[in-house]
């Protein structure tokens, strides 16, 4: 029986706490008496027969939807869209959940005599997936059957010939999505719902959309009104996507939604990485030797080697549920299943929120976590992993631990380099940068070319990463990064600190000397349910 997540009050006997620190770790002693640590739940039980559960979900849909067997007909045009490389994190061991689901769908399509099938990686403005990444996601069998014929493609949000304007929401938001998908008799969307933000109408309305459509909800105003964007009912990001979903539905676009959840078995129960998933006071002698050995070895390795070791890690995530059918009904149940793994009850807010940032975020899979992505991971994702109220009080301090190297992947993140040099030197205000700089980056022909033909994120993507931080930047009084590149941290507008003790000393200037401290022991992922 897996143990639920809980909050530990730190006392004198509490051992040093593990902080992720990029491609490495730190062990930090938190001040006793005024600190607490939020621990995630242990991995919940996986489905015994995932393939059987998928087949069962397809023929027993949720909500107002016919079984998939009844929706598939000879001569129809079928599009299968699926989540891109940003999910799950880290990439999972084969077979990927998308492969399982897509194979099950195609089995039914073959039995129904459907010939016109196309698969689309719904990547919105993310970089295109490479052949290896697509093979990993959909499996070799599906890739070999469809990709050589051009029937397995990456979505192109800048291809004017393959986008279709559908209409506008009642708030004037334009809805434009992939033409092939829009003109299909049926879109089957295959989701991996790693966190509660994923899925629902966001899948189709964002994953298959164009910049023209995305800009209506990927902006500072929307993000500041999403408290948090992990909580659908208090998220303007979701409201906008749901409005767009209504436009899609009313225009006749038919979506059969398949959502899956997974447990947070990120580092496994065996092997050297498994210690990262254990609670510190339960570390055995072997675990302690492992941590010491890993830390020493990693500290002496070149950055490139460390990165390649961590990027090669594939998590033994396992599927915990699968829902299929009508979009909203499916998403409601999926969200409950995500919460079952992630939610941890937390009483009250804190003055100082600490977090150890790992090596990976949704936007640097097989890549580099550059300073902008460090900010987005901490203030965008980790900060927003709450329901109710933020774990840190308004005007409080966030302390993040990450090396924050002044380093960018030149192929994946070309516009990030210019954003770092040209925009962050001028302003850190998301509203100002959206008004003064966004358009020139979004419509830059060179970035557009790289997005469409190379493996680059869209020119506007670094802006979106900064917008992701909008809520946190507005909410907190100060952000400190421990152990980061001083120049890079200052460029981000944050304060650098050498040690956690220094950071706490600096934070005391803002929140006082007896400030309370809460540490998010994440990953594995947790979501604070703050009362």
């Amino acid at each position, binding site marked *: 029986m897996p143990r639920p997540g809980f909050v530990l009050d730190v006392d004198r006997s509490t051992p040093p706490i593990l902080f992720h620190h990029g491609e490495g770790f730190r062990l930090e002693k938190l001040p006793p008496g005024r600190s607490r640590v939020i621990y995630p739940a242990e991995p919940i039980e996986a489905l015994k027969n*995932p*393939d059987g559960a998928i087949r069962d979900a397809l023929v027993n849909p949720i909500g107002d939807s016919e079984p998939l067997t009844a929706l598939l007909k000879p001569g129809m045009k079928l599009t299968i869209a699926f989540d891109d490389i940003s999910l799950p994190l880290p990439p999972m061991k084969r077979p990927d959940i998308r492969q399982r689901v897509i194979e099950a769908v195609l*089995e039914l399509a073959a039995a129904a*005599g459907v010939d016109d099938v196309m698969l689309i990686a719904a990547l919105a403005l993310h970089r295109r997936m490479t052949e290896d990444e697509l093979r990993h996601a959909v499996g070799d069998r599906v890739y070999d*059957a469809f990709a050589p014929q051009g029937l397995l493609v990456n979505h192109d949000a800048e291809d004017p010939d393959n986008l279709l304007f559908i209409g506008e929401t009642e708030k004037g938001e334009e809805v434009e999505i992939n033409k092939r998908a829009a003109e299909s008799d049926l879109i089957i969307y295959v989701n991996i719902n790693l966190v509660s933000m994923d899925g629902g109408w966001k899948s189709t309305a964002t994953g298959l959309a164009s910049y023209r459509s995305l800009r209506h909800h990927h902006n500072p105003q929307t993000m500041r009104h999403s408290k948090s964007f992990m909580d659908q009912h208090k998220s303007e990001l979701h409201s906008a996507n749901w409005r767009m979903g209504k436009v899609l539905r009313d225009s006749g676009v038919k979506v059969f939604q398949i959502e899956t959840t997974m447990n947070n078995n990120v580092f496994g129960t065996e092997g050297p990485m498994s210690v990262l998933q254990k609670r510190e006071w339960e570390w055995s002698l072997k675990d302690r030797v492992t941590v010491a050995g890993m830390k020493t070895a990693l500290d002496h390795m070149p950055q490139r080697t460390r990165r390649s070791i961590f990027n090669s890690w594939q998590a033994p995530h396992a599927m915990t549920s699968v829902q299929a059918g009508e979009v909203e009904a499916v998403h409601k149940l999926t969200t409950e299943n995500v919460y079952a793994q992630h939610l941890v009850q937390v009483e009250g807010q804190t003055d100082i929120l600490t977090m150890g940032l790992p090596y990976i975020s949704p936007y640097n899979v097989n890549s580099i976590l550059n300073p902008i992505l460090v900010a987005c991971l901490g203030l965008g994702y980790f900060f927003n992993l709450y329901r109710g109220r933020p774990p840190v009080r308004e005007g409080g301090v966030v302390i993040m631990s990450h090396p924050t190297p002044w380093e960018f992947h030149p192929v994946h993140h070309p516009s990030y380099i210019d954003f770092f040099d040209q925009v962050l030197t001028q302003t850190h205000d998301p509203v100002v940068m959206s008004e003064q700089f966004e358009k020139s980056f979004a419509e830059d022909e060179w970035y557009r070319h790289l997005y469409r033909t190379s493996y680059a994120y869209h020119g506007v993507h670094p802006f979106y990463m900064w917008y992701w931080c909008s809520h946190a930047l507005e909410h907190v009084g100060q952000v400190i990064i421990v152990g980061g590149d001083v120049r890079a941290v200052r460029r981000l507008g944050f304060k650098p600190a050498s040690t956690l003790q220094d950071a706490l000393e600096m934070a005391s200037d803002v929140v006082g000397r007896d400030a309370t401290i809460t540490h998010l022991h994440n990953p594995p992922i947790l979501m604070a349910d703050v009362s």
Partner: protein
Amino acid sequence: MRPMPITRKQATRLIKRLPVNRSVSTASRTGSRVTRMAKAIVKAPSVPAGVDLLKKEKNVGSSYDTDWARSYPARVARVLILNGVLKPIIDLLATPTIHGTDRLADLEGPAIFAANHHSHADTPLMMTAIPEPWRNRLFIGAAADYWFTNRVTSPISALVIGAIPVERTKVSRKAIDQSLELLADEWSMLIFPEGARSPDGWARPFTSGAAFLSSHSGVPVVPVFLQGTNKVLPKGRNIPRPAATTVVFGSPMYANEGEDSRAFAARIQEAVAALGDESATDWWQARRNAASDTTPSLDGPDAVSWRRSWARTSKAKGQRRSWPKV
């Protein structure tokens, strides 16, 4: 002193000519004591006249006891032979392309790997292609009248390929009982349900052995399609030649409620045929063919030999047609 009637030299010569002493004197002259002892050990004692010998229990063929081949030292030896000898040879000669191992991701416990059978190269190819952990606890049902014929081939078969003898020429429960015991003891099995190598590259009808064992043990059958081994070492040849091979693993299969072994065996054969179709075309086309009941069969057209050979060589992509050898 009275003189001897003959001299010592003459006496020695006389003794040598006596038939009764000849062997003794020859042995003493031609071999050392050690040699004599060795000969005494090697040479079977003569049987006195009028004595009936006890009938010795035969320890070859289907009676050969292979338990020792699953002991820990034997398993270690087999892993060394497999990785040190067989795998390099297979990689060199067969250059296998392996698909479908991801279908085994949810499989826990033992499995019965059931493959089509073209060649003696199938066994070492499968032994190196089956992924761990099944590879390390694997036994093979091998024809007793071929692999266990004498005291040299029997231990080699048991040790190198982990074989247990299976009687092909008469009905016997011994192999079935032993297989069920081993499956219950978490050993996986490799079996070629055709019973013998294909004579012309097309499969023979699958017998119900794998299906029977699966139904009675609850262990799933993993269908496996092999292609190309008939070029590496076809039936009738003793010298292998390099050729590309393909191994495609299918999803584990269980007997349906109330399904008899023959029907299950037919389903296994269909699954192997679908994997063959997947290998020749692609997965999506194979699924469509399976759905429309047009999966090419494994056993080929019901026609004369040259037309069967013609059909076989034309079905695979990139293969040249060839006339059968006469």
